[in-house]
Each structure stands twice: as C-alpha cells, then as structure tokens.
C-alpha cells in the first residue's frame, strides 16, 4: 500500500448499493477474501481519484446500526473502533438511498459520532422523480453538518463528484450529531470519572457490544466486567432504545426541512409483480418454474462447454504424450497434472452459470421473496428460509451450493447448511445411480410407473430428506450461540444491473479457481500417483506378465484388449489396488469385493470416476457403457450369486447417496469455514452414515435373495 493512498470505507444499510458504488469506483481492480480468522467476506479495491491520488476502498458488510447483532456487523464495529486495525479508514463514506433515507441516517448519525471524517452519499437518485422525492441537498448538508452527494450508480451520476470530494477530504469535519450522554447523564458522569480518557460514545459501543450478540474475541482494552456491572443487560437494552429515539428525533428534524416525499405516487409495476411473486398459489409455482429453468439451463448449457473442456484437456494430454519421450515425466504431465487441471476447470461452467443466476435473483430482490415464502417450511429443521437456495443448488453440484451459503448471515445456520448440502443428490451421482439401477432394479412397472425412474426419484428425495434430518440433528448438537431472531428486509424489486452480475460471476469463478482449485489439483495428482505407481514385481513387470499370459492362452487377442488387460493388471497391483484389497474386509459386509473397493477409493476424487474405474478394472473401453454393464452383470460371487444383486446394489446406492466422496467439496468447505475441522467432521460423519446404511441394507436384504 503506497503512502499517499487514502483509506476509504464504504458503510451503509444492506441494499443501499454499497457494492454498486464499490464496483463503480474500482471496476475489476478488486480483491475478495476473508477477514482474518473468520468467514465474513472482505472486499477491497483500488481507485485512482485523480492523477496523483489513489484510494484503497473497502466494501464493509451491510449493517443497520453499530449496535451489533451479527458477525458481519461486529466486523464493521471492530474496524471502525480499532485505530490499530489495518483496515481502519481515514474517511468513511456512508451510502444511503433516496427511498429509505430516514432509516439510513440512523447509521449515519452513529458513524458521525465516531469522529472520523465522514461524507454522506445518497444513491439511487435516478428513482427520485418516479417516487416523487425531492431532496434539498444544501439544507441537508447544514442540518447533518457534513458533505452530501446525490449519486446514481445506474446512470453514473455523481461518481466523479464523489472522487473529487474524497481528494478534498481535509474539508470534512469531525463534529458529532448527537450527544450520547443525554440518554442517562448520571451513568455517563460515572463512566467519565472512571475512564476519563475515553470518548463517551466509543465507550458506550464497547459496553453494549455483547448485549445483543456474543462478539468474537476483540482484545477489549478494558475489563468488560467493570463496565457492565453497574447496569444489567435489560437496562442497557432500554438505554439503546432511548438512544434510538434520540437519534430519530435529530433525524426527523433534519428530514422535515430537506426531504419531501409525494405520497400520492402509485407503487407501479413493482408492487403488482411483488403480489404475484408471493401469491399463495402462484408463488410456489413460479419459484418451482424458476428453479426448474435454472437447473435445465445448467444441465443443458454447461454440458456443451464441459464436453469441450473435457476434449481439450484429453487432446492436450495426448499431445504431451506424443511429443515427450514416454516415461514417468510424460505420465505425470499428461495423466497427473493436465488431467488434474482439467478436473478443476471442468467445474467452471456450472459455477459460472449458477452464480450468474443467483446474482440475478439477488440483484432483482427476488431472493428475499423466496426466503419469505419458505421460511415456515425450513423452521422445523432449525433452519430459516435463507438455506433454501443452497440446498436446491446442491442438486446440481455441491460446490457452488456451498459458495451460495454466503448469503446466510447467521453463522450457525450457515455452517449447518454447508455441512448438510452434500447430502443432496448432485449431478455427479447420476452416472453411478443409472448404471447400478439398470443392473439391479427390474425394468418393470409399479402402479403404472416405471420402477427404475421411481427408484431414481426416490434417491433424490432421500438425499434431500437426509439433508434436512442432519440439519435438525446438528441444530441440537452444535453449541453455537445464535440470536434466534428472524428479520429479512424485502427490498423493492429492481431491474438487475448486469455490470454487478458480471462482476459477481467473475469473482466467484476466480475465487474457486485460485483457492479451492489448488487443493483439488494437489489431491488429484496424489490419487493419480497412487493409481499409476506400485511396488513389487507384479507392478513393474505387468507388461511381460500379461503378454506371456496372452501367448500362453493361445487365443487371438486384439492389440487394444492386451493393452486394457495390462492397465487392469497395473491398477490391480498399484498402491490403490492394494488399498482396495486392504479394505475388502470392510466392503464385504455390503456384498462387495476389492474391485469395487478400488472404485470406492478412486470415487473419492469425484464420484463420476466410479464408472471409469470399473471400466479399467473389467478391462473394457470406458466409452462402451453397454459392455461395462454386461461385464458387471456377469460378475459372480464365490457362492455363485450375481455380484451386483438387489442387496449389494441397494448397498452401493445408499453408500453413494450418503458418503462424502468429493474432495472438491471438502476443499471448498475448508475454504468457506476457514478450518479443516468442519470438512473432516463432515467426511467422517457422512462416510460413517453411508457405511452403516449400506451394510445394514445389505444384511437385511440378502437373506431373501
């Protein structure tokens, strides 16, 4: 950070357009990360104000006031109160909005009382005419004792003036709006006599910080006990009530002189649309239709770029294989690294599409309508309406679903949602389900419905039900303090700004690639290594052994068949092969042998690898689904039973339904929860549940076969 870079913080209520202002100022020069140690998203960016001055802008989480009730809000207070914090701003820009100005000003008066140079930006000026709002900026400046700028990020009005004003930040004063001591003079006298060097309002914020919320560790400069001892929590809350009344008195006086709202203006198309969207009957139908469309688009449209990516990387691997001398290095490059990178890049279309739609729903204000509609449904499971979108998203892929939980402010709700999302049936399970179902479920009709599709549908429901059940259990088990209060603002419906949507898609994709991507790549290289290396004669001499066997058999083998036999033999004697054999005793109770054991292990890289691995094991071409099926069907157990019978088939289905077999998901969970503890717990618990269900079902069914 250069020395003449001005530190500016954007603060404001949610939905006032902070992020839009941030985008307008910084463009793509932004960095998205986390605040150290916690999982609140942190957005910073750089903006050149004029030729000689730049500003480092931070987009703080939306907050209604400095009286914190959530982790997001306490981050804001921490940064604004703690002068030593690296993000502590030199100038604060409070972003307000024309329609809710009065409410926005509550936060403004609190910020102003911190005595940090502050200027007020009133956004969405483009809506004033339509809403019949008039603002007398000059009077408002005088009343609030600050610089006021009317802007619109939509029509790019006022952005330049904001930059100029930031350059001239020395002109801003640090006078307060209200005198906090007025709410209880005796109490504040008392405080002053003990902590004479402290500013009364900052002291008040410190004292009341945990009245409504348990903040994370804050290195309090003073002992909390000394401070709160004279007042109970209830008394403090009453004082906060008084503070709010005091502030509104000040605001009302200012507003009455400078703000006119012509109440007669009708609410227009937004109001009508809103009523339809949350209508008793239409509401859910529309929501269902939107979800269906999104999934359809994700499935259909992403398969095109995904196939292209697949081919591109396969081709690349081929080129490397052909142009390098055969050997370990070429294999590492083509089968390890390139395939690994391909395995990361392949997720991009799904993530990009999904974050596009979510950003669109978010930007338009529809998301909060959905939360409003389904809240009642989610409550029995200890969740709120805000968890619905990630859970639905999980049906496509758990990775973007985990990323979508960022919209849940409540940490406990968010954590539970992250932990249960992988139970929902993601698209990677589909190939496994399809092949097993076609093997073990008779192609018959039941009550007029095809039995096979019925089982598939059942599996989808099972995944969702398990997610909800797990949520209910976790809700009882996890001891995380939670303010059990539900409140969602329903912002007016708006036409989305595509610039904002675009930036969100870009940021989400980038953060997936740079953060989870590395881990996924590392893990896939490890799995490749274990599958293509081994010790002992059998592995090293695989080619000779197989060739001599072929010759001894005196049959006419094709060249491909020999090659497949060799890779089969190699896999069997690789590290993973030995691991498969090692876990055989464990998979036996679910009716499986070491071959499927290997597939279970490689599936950990990604579930869809299951079919490919079985293809290698049974020495058939992966493209040839029909042959794999036949091979699997002809496998027999030692007692002559089909290897894939109803009992073991159900066991596999249940195992894949519940087990955490996706390292990419684990990587993203690690990133979003900022610790290995949660993904490990998730992995252990899910695999255990899967194992118990699989073994249980096998043992239950097998006597009847």
């Amino acid at each position, binding site marked *: 950070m250069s020395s003449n870079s001005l530190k500016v913080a954007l603060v404001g209520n949610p939905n006032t357009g902070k992020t839009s202002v941030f985008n307008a100022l910084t463009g793509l020069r932004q960095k998205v990360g986390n605040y150290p140690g916690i999982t609140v998203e942190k957005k910073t960016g750089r903006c050149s104000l004029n030729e000689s001055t730049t500003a480092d802008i931070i987009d703080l989480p939306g907050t*209604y006031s400095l*009286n914190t009730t959530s982790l997001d809000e306490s981050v804001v207070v921490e940064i604004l109160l703690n002068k030593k914090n690296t993000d502590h701003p030199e100038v604060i820009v409070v972003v307000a909005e024309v329609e809710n100005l009065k409410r926005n000003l509550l936060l403004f008066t609190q910020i102003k009382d911190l005595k940090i140079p502050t200027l007020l930006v009133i956004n969405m000026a483009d809506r004033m005419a339509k809403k019949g709002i008039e603002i007398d900026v000059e009077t408002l400046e005088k009343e609030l004792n600050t610089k006021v700028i009317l802007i619109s990020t939509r029509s790019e009005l006022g952005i330049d003036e904001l930059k100029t004003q930031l350059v001239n930040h020395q002109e801003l004063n640090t006078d307060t709006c209200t005198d906090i001591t007025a709410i209880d003079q005796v109490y504040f006298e008392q405080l002053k006599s003990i902590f004479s060097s402290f500013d009364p309002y900052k002291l008040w914020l410190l004292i009341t910080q945990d009245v409504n919320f348990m903040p994370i560790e804050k290195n309090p400069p003073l002992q909390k006990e000394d401070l709160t001892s004279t007042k109970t929590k209830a008394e403090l809350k009453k004082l906060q009530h008084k503070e709010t009344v005091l502030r509104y008195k000040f605001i009302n006086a200012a507003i009455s002189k400078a703000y006119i709202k012509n109440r007669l203006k009708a609410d227009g198309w937004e109001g009508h649309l809103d009523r339809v969207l949350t209508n008793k009957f239409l509401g859910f139908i529309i929501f269902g239709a939107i979800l269906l469309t999104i999934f359809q688009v994700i499935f259909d449209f992403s398969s095109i770029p995904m196939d292209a990516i697949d081919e591109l990387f396969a081709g690349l691997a081929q080129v490397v294989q052909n142009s390098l001398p055969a050997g370990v290095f070429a294999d590492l490059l083509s089968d390890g690294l390139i395939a690994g990178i391909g395995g990361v890049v392949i997720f991009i279309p799904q993530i990009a599409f999904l974050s596009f739609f979510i950003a669109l729903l978010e930007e338009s204000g529809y998301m909060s309508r959905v939360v409003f509609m389904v809240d009642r449904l989610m409550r029995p499971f200890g969740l709120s309406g805000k968890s619905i979108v990630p859970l639905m998203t999980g049906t496509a892929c758990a990775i973007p679903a985990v990323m979508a939980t960022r919209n849940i402010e409540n940490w406990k709700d968010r954590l539970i949602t992250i932990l249960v999302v992988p139970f929902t049936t993601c698209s990677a399970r589909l190939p496994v389900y399809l092949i097993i179902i076609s093997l073990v479920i008779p192609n018959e009709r039941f009550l007029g419905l095809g039995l096979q599709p019925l089982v598939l549908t059942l599996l989808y429901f099972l995944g969702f039900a398990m997610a909800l059940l797990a949520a209910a259990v976790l809700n009882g088990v996890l001891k995380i303090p939670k303010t059990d209060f539900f409140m969602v603002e329903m*912002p007016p419906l708006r036409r989305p700004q595509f610039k904002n949507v675009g930036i969100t898609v870009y940021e989400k994709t980038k953060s997936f690639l740079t953060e989870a991507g590395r881990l996924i790549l590392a893990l896939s290289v490890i799995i490749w290594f274990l599958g293509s290396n081994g010790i002992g004669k059998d592995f090293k001499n695989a080619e000779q052994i197989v060739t001599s066997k072929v010759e001894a058999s005196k049959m006419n083998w094709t060249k491909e068949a020999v090659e497949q036999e060799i890779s089969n033999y190699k896999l069997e004697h690789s590290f993973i092969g030995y691991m498969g054999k090692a876990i055989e005793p464990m998979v036996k109770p679910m009716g499986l042998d070491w071959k499927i054991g290997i597939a279970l292990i490689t599936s950990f890289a990604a579930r869809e690898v299951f079919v490919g691995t079985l293809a290698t094991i049974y020495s058939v071409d992966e493209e040839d689904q029909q042959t794999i099926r036949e091979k699997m069907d002809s496998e027999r157990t030692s007692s002559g039973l089909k290897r894939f019978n109803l009992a073991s088939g159900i066991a596999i289905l249940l195992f894949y339904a519940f087990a955490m077999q996706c390292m990419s998901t684990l990587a993203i969970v690690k990133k979003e929860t900022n610790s290995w503890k949660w993904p490990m717990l998730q992995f252990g618990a899910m695999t255990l549940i899967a194992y118990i269900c699989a073994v249980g079902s096998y043992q239950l069914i097998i006597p009847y076969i």
Partner: protein
Amino acid sequence: MKKLSQLKVGERATIASFEEDAVPVKLLELGCLPGNQIVLHSIAPLKDPICVELEGSQIAIRRETAVRIFVETV
C-alpha cells in the same frame, strides 16, 4: 388495542407498545418505535412470516415476534 399479528393485509396502525425483550434492537432501529406508523403489507403463503411496512421499507418478521407488538388502529 390489537396485536400486530391481528391486522388485516393493507391495514394501517400506530405502534402502541411492545414487550421489551421480544423486540430486538435491530427492529427498533428500523423504525419499530411507539408512535410510528406500521402497515401489514403481506402474509407469506404459509401464514408465517408476515411482512410489515415501516418508514417506507418492507420487513419480514415471524409471527412469534408480531404477537408481542401492540398497535392502535385508527
């Protein structure tokens, strides 16, 4: 005097009082203060939560909160 939850959709009322511990500071700060106007804007399809209009903005709260806020209809 009525409970906020007993208002009809579209009905306007003045906030009279509330049980102190039922209403979080956050709601106060959004304008849920005695003497202020409140309108029941809409009710969710499953009857809960409800959406009220306060100081021009719409806020959804659960019924369990709304039954502890008392209003005076005009």
